[in-house]
């Protein structure tokens, strides 16, 4: 049956019934079948994000073609005396003389090869796949600490766990064929010494795990845009030198962000390191600046985002301190605290000012709003007791508050909340609580009273009424309560007409009332 003579619609239909592995084998048959599949099946490759070559122990190489809904793995392993079963044929466009063959008996899709020709074989596979899938996807190399990976062309990202006793030259050789990579990660037994013009230091994004070694040279010679160093020690003089060179426009022109986490190996004294640096601060003491950016990583499944593949993770710093570069006036936030040194340009990253109003930090806060929305105050309140009078709330904000408290994602300090929206808003308790796991007291005849005292710090009518105290009583009664995830903390909740009340059982006075007595 002459496949190549069928009309292309028929050929495409036939290919459509084949999964990746038979298609790949079919593409080995001839240049024409390879080109045909590449052209007709291009629409199927469109979701492919990356191909990764994982080099593990005993010269095994796992190759994975991945997209959000694509997972086509295969692997190659070296020929041994116990594995003599080979099918001699041309694979991956390599001549029969090339020592790689389809493994006929092993389950899955695998090949065996002569490990003495590893570089030739792996490069041959990579060349074939690169031609087959094109340059629009990412090609990644990953290795375990058992061996260094061979140097391959057209690689975008590399993550190497350096084996024991590896020299700088051996490590450098892994990058000879692809010296300009988007992301490089170095881990394992690495003592920090790199070749003078190392390709590693030219990676756009570089992450280094150092396990207590000094990273001074890496920091001072880094040529890329984003650098993260974990468990790495730095001499104070190196940090100072970096900051001074950046500030005086003598170096680090490409650098957009730097994160140093020295773990337990080194603590930094911010006052000492920044004393001669002409550090600026945001105008208002309550202001801080969040600077955030995306740091590259090898692709990973983000289960929080529906298992979509992500190739970067969010990094950031929060600080009031910043530097202004001489001559061009570029600003960069700087944070030096305990074991961490962070630095990030404003204009190359995302910046957001956080006004940490002191009001949000008041232990007890009472707000009279006369119909205005109190959403933001509720969501940003950090302390223990909050009361609103005549404030208006969106239903979604009440739900968000309850959900965040319940899931232990916020409001950890809050002991009580009272909202009285007066004539401005009425709330539907059933609607607001419908998606929240609300419990009810076991016995239908019982209701729980929760009482607390709210501070008063200024003369008012209330002071006359409760003149002997600097606080006045507040409370709620309800049969409904929530249990917080994680710690099992309980809080009663009551949503009725114009009022929303919430109070912890712990930290307040609780009293059960029998409605029949």
């Amino acid at each position, binding site marked *: *049956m*002459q*496949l*190549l003579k*069928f*009309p292309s*619609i*028929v050929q495409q*239909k*036939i*290919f*459509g*019934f*084949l999964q990746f592995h*038979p298609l790949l*084998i*079919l593409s*080995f*048959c*001839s240049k024409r*079948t390879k080109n045909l599949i590449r052209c007709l099946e291009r629409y199927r490759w469109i979701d492919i994000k990356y191909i990764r070559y994982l080099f593990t122990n005993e010269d095994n190489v796992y190759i994975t073609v991945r997209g959000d809904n694509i997972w086509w793995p295969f692997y190659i392993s070296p020929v041994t005396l116990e594995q003599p079963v080979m*099918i001699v*044929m*041309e*694979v991956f466009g390599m001549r*029969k003389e090339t020592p790689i063959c*389809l493994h*006929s008996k092993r389950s899955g899709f695998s090949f065996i090869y002569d490990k003495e020709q590893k570089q030739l074989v792996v490069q041959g596979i990579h060349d074939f796949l690169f031609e087959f899938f094109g340059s629009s996807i990412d090609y990644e190399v990953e290795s375990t600490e058992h061996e260094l990976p061979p140097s391959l062309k057209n690689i975008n990202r590399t993550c190497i766990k350096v084996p024991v006793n590896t020299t700088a030259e051996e490590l450098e050789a892994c990058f000879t064929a692809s010296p300009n990579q988007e992301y490089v990660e170095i881990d394992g037994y690495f003592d920090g010494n790199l070749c003078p013009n190392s390709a590693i230091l030219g990676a756009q994004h570089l992450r280094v795990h150092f396990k207590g070694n000094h990273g001074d040279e890496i920091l001072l010679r880094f040529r890329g845009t984003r650098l993260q160093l974990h468990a790495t020690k730095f001499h104070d003089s190196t940090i100072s030198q970096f900051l001074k060179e950046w500030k005086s426009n003598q170096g680090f022109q490409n650098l957009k962000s730097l994160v140093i986490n020295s773990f337990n190996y080194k603590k930094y004294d911010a006052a000492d390191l920044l004393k001669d640096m002409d550090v600026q601060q945001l105008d208002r003491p309550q202001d801080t600046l969040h600077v955030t950016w995306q740091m590259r990583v090898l692709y990973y499944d983000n289960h929080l985002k529906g298992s979509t593949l992500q190739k970067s993770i969010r990094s950031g710093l929060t600080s009031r301190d910043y530097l202004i570069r001489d001559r061009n006036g570029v600003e960069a936030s700087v944070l030096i605290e305990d074991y961490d040194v962070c630095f990030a340009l404003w204009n190359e990253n995302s910046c957001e000012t956080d006004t940490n109003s002191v009001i949000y930090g008041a232990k007890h806060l009472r707000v009279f709003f006369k119909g205005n929305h109190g959403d933001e105050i509720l969501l940003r309140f950090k302390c223990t007791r909050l009361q609103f009078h005549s404030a208006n709330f969106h239903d979604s904000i009440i739900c968000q508050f309850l959900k965040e408290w319940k899931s232990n994602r916020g409001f950890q300090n809050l002991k009580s909340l009272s909202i009285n929206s007066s004539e401005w808003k009425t709330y539907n308790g059933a609607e607001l609580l419908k998606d929240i796991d609300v419990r009810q007291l076991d016995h239908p005849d019982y209701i729980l009273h929760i009482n607390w005292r709210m501070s008063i710090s200024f003369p008012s009518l209330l002071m006359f009424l409760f003149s002997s105290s600097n606080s006045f009583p507040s409370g709620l009664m309800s049969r409904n309560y929530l249990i917080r995830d994680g710690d099992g903390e309980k809080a009663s909740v009551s949503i009725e007409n114009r009022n929303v009340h919430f109070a912890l059982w712990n930290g307040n006075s609780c009293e059960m009332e029998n409605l029949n007595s």
Partner: protein
Amino acid sequence: MTSPASSSEVKYLIESSEGNTFDVSGAALRQSNTFNAMFLNIGADGPIPFTDYNEATLKKVFEYCEHSVNEENYSGPKHQDDLSKWDLNFFNEMDQKMFIDVINASNFLDIERLTSYCCERIARMLRGKNTQEMIKVITLPTAEELEAKQKVEEKKAAAAKKVAEKAAETAEKTETLEELPVQQLVQTTRNKLTRKYLSFSNE
């Protein structure tokens, strides 16, 4: 008999490559998107000419269409294991040549169900095979065959070159005898040689 089809009772005459005609029901023909696009609304005067395909192939294709008239709407190909006994017999009783002709005719007539089943059947022949086995299924020349073919072509080219050179010599002599002007002679010889060489190579 030809008329706009609105009922399954209507019969159409189909003409094959041999010039033979035979009846096909409207219901069966309507499974062909090509027919629907070309004749359904306007009708046809005389037999519908599907003359790229022989009678046996067309009859086989429409046998399938007649059989599947009452089947539920097509929603993608069934797995071969789910095919009915009739379907299996239908495919099994065809030899390879007929099978290929049926695929081509079905593709031309755009009969989705039949084309898909045929393609799935071919895909099934390819699954689980290694390269050499696949090469046999899809009838690709092997590397040795390609090499041998290349050698033959090289020999042919060399022979053609020799013949062309000899012809050029002869032509030169002939034209000289006729005392043509030199420029014209050269051009005529060149043209003749080119034509000869090209026709030889094309063979």
